């Protein structure tokens, strides 16, 4: 009606609602719809305790459970030049970057760290799907090269967790050139006689699969992960027929001989440590901690009747944007 209703009231209202609705206490499982309490969900590494559905997890949260005692040291990644093409679609690329940084609290879409799993020293890298769909640009390329170089310098295996919609279109051809660049990184490890283990997580698609994510000595995937070069929608448009159930999911790829194993998130640490121990002839000194139960002293409050909106909005939607056929 006037400037008070238009301006003052929405501002005041937003102040109140922000204070009163606690965010992210409850997350709804994308698969079975169960409301999951955040502490329980975090303890289970964001795997639904009801149906076993694997939700997106940030590299930091993953590493806290993956490395012994949650302790790891980040490996520095050389900073690439920003916005080399001066790319602009509906938004400027630097603005998209800033928004992603603000949303995730991370600098870029990959985290590299060194530490120990079951007493075995390794280097690990994990891609962050929540940061611009995990897309592979120059930074991700640099991160994989830095991870490989660090692994070679320390004579340690590299474990890589992939998650990406594909190449970062905003870096144009330079994102495509990360395919050969990261392949060079893989070859550095192979030449140094170091194991390279890839864990494909939901989703890993496009140019990422056509380079470092498919070149592991051992290829493991998390259950239900979408893994493909061309996405299901693109294929359906091309061949104009319905695709079979579970097409391009981890289990389907396992059946078609494209993976070594499909392993639940909670069992990855022990399995990878064992494989690495056999490949490198090193003994494991620390047992893998059993998947922690929900802390008994933390009473779980009753779930709210409605799923809180912020959590729902942050839940990753399935099919990511992918860089074409």
């Amino acid at each position, binding site marked *: 009606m006037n400037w008070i209703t238009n301006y003052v009231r929405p501002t005041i209202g937003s102040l109140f609602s922000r204070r009163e609705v606690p965010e992210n206490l409850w997350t709804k499982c994308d698969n079975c719809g169960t409301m999951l309490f955040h502490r329980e969900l975090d303890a289970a590494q964001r795997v639904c305790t009801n149906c076993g559905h694997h939700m997106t997890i940030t590299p930091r949260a993953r590493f806290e459970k993956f490395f012994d005692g949650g302790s790891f040291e980040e490996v520095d990644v050389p900073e690439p030049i920003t916005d080399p093409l001066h790319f602009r679609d*509906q938004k400027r690329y630097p603005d998209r970057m800033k928004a992603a940084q603000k949303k995730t609290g991370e600098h870029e879409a990959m985290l590299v760290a060194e530490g120990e799993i079951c007493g075995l020293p390794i280097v690990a890298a994990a891609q962050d799907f929540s940061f611009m769909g995990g897309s592979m640009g120059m930074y991700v390329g640099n991160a994989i090269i830095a991870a490989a170089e660090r692994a070679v310098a320390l004579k340690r295996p590299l474990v890589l967790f992939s998650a990406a919609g594909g190449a970062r279109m905003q870096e144009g051809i330079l994102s495509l050139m990360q395919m*050969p660049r990261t*392949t*060079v990184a893989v070859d550095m490890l192979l030449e140094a006689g170091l194991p390279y283990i890839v864990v494909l997580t939901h989703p890993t698609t496009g140019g990422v699969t056509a380079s*470092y994510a498919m070149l592991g000595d051992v290829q493991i995937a998390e259950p239900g992960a979408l893994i493909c*070069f061309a996405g299901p929608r693109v294929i359906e448009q*091309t061949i104009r027929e319905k695709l079979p159930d579970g097409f391009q999911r981890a289990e389907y790829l396992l059946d078609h001989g494209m993976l070594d194993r499909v392993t639940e998130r909670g069992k990855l640490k022990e399995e990878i440590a064992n494989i690495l121990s056999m490949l490198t002839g090193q003994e494991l000194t620390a047992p893998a901690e059993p998947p922690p139960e929900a802390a008994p002293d933390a009473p779980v409050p009753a779930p709210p009747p409605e799923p809180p909106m912020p959590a729902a909005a942050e839940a990753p939607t399935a099919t990511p944007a992918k860089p074409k*056929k």
Partner: protein
Amino acid sequence: MNNYLDFEKPLAEIEGKANELRAMARANEEMDIEKEVAGLDKKAADMLAKLYSELSPWRKCQVARHPDRPHCKDYIEALCTDYTPLAGDRNFADDHAIMGGLARMGGMPVVVMGHEKGHDTKSRIERNFGMARPEGYRKAVRLMDLADRFGLPVVTLVDTPGAFPGKGAEERGQSEAIARATQRCLRLGVPMVSVIIGEGGSGGAVGIATANKVLMLEHSIYSVISPEGCASILWKDADKTKEAADALRLTAQDLQQLGVIDKIVKEPLGGAHRDPAEAIRAVGQALEGQLKQLSGVGGDDLRANRRRKYLGLGAKGLAA
């Protein structure tokens, strides 16, 4: 010249008029049209020169995809002697979207291969429009193995909209096949030279284009995604292909500035499709020069140079 692109319409009108006059003169010998026809020809030539001196990225996409543009097969037939096609991936099938084999280029034995799009409906279907399946990339790996074992340089001609997005291709490991092909390129202990002759479509191109030297025809394109795909993802509007083509910086000129390609091969006036023989000759000459330069280099150095080249990419951006 039958196949005019949409932006060549005014040119088509002028050339059409000139041809009409010529036809009339043939029917009626007393007609003196020389002056008029000469005027029209001059106008057409000027217009052609102007159009092609300022092609926008989107127009370059159209030229790069022109059906009359010479394709891989044309280059091999014209530039090679003793071409001996080699087929199959020894696993599943022979993929006709990637052709290749042994040949002599300027008398020197080489392994030559490339994407072939086909030139009419029948051959396009047979070639799957130049969109390779895993078998194609695995055949490429086999051919590179052969080249490496016998010390033959590898020449690849790149012209694909992208790797084929199909059910079977996915089931048989499209991504793994491309990754292995890229890896094989990087490990070659023999010289490798690639020429983007039309479309360098994403990973489908990279698999056989990770070379010591990458050349590009003047009006060809090389991109992480097609402008159509980019428009529909980032603009959520399939009509924004022109904007996407601009933003992606997919022209040979931009890619040279970024250091992604090493040399631009000039096309005849009005594009390779107006004078295929001349375009093929220019590519042949450029290839010969590159192969000569690389011929004395040892295997370890070739590998090291290739690695250094790709690791160093991204050090410079484009001027604002």
